[in-house]
């Protein structure tokens, strides 16, 4: 499937880009996170990060579909 991934904060800086369209052969957001961590050398643990699909926060086992718009969030630091 073809999906779009947008990066934030340290992920954007490490990936060296704001967003990209990629061909994805896994199932879940967790699979996507593992794949992108290798490609872009992210060191962050998945458990500390968040993911949104089509503007809604979802769990890591959420199943992706063709055309999904994914937001990849590194550990947050509000306040």
């Amino acid at each position, binding site marked *: 499937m073809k999906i779009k991934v947008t990066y934030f*904060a*340290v992920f954007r800086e490490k990936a060296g880009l704001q967003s990209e369209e990629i061909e994805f052969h896994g199932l879940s957001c967790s699979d996507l996170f593992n794949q992108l961590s290798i490609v872009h050398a992210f060191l962050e643990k998945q458990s500390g990060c968040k993911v*949104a699909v089509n503007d809604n926060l979802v769990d890591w086992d959420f199943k992706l579909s063709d055309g999904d718009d994914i937001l990849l969030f590194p*550990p*947050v630091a509000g306040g």
Partner: protein
Amino acid sequence: MFQLQDNRISRIDLLDQFSNPRAGAFITFEGIVRNHHEGRDVAYLEYEAHQKIAESEGKKILEEARESFDILGCYAVHRTGKLEIGDIAVWIGCLASHRDACYQANRFIIEELKTRLTIWKKEYYSDGTSDWVNCKTKIS
């Protein structure tokens, strides 16, 4: 009411939101930009946010506070963009009949905002380096 804003937070304007003859306690928390963090001198910082999701999470947190604690109202504002030392990064106000619920709700809101808002803080140090706080990567 939760709100993200790019311009300076004015505590004076915020205080006007609160008035209720049943209120016996009013507590405000301000998170302020410190000149130090883990032994390093901070010059200024920048908050990046995913606004839509941060606002939706912020609203949820305030709703949870109203459901969990016996309060009359609560309000929170978080800054984005570039902040100087001494600037207010986050402002939380809670109003209640009694102080115990008021302290608890206020504390609940800041703890939840810190871990749930899609906001990232980049600190710029006086030695010219910078760092995403809570991320283990240092960017010079």
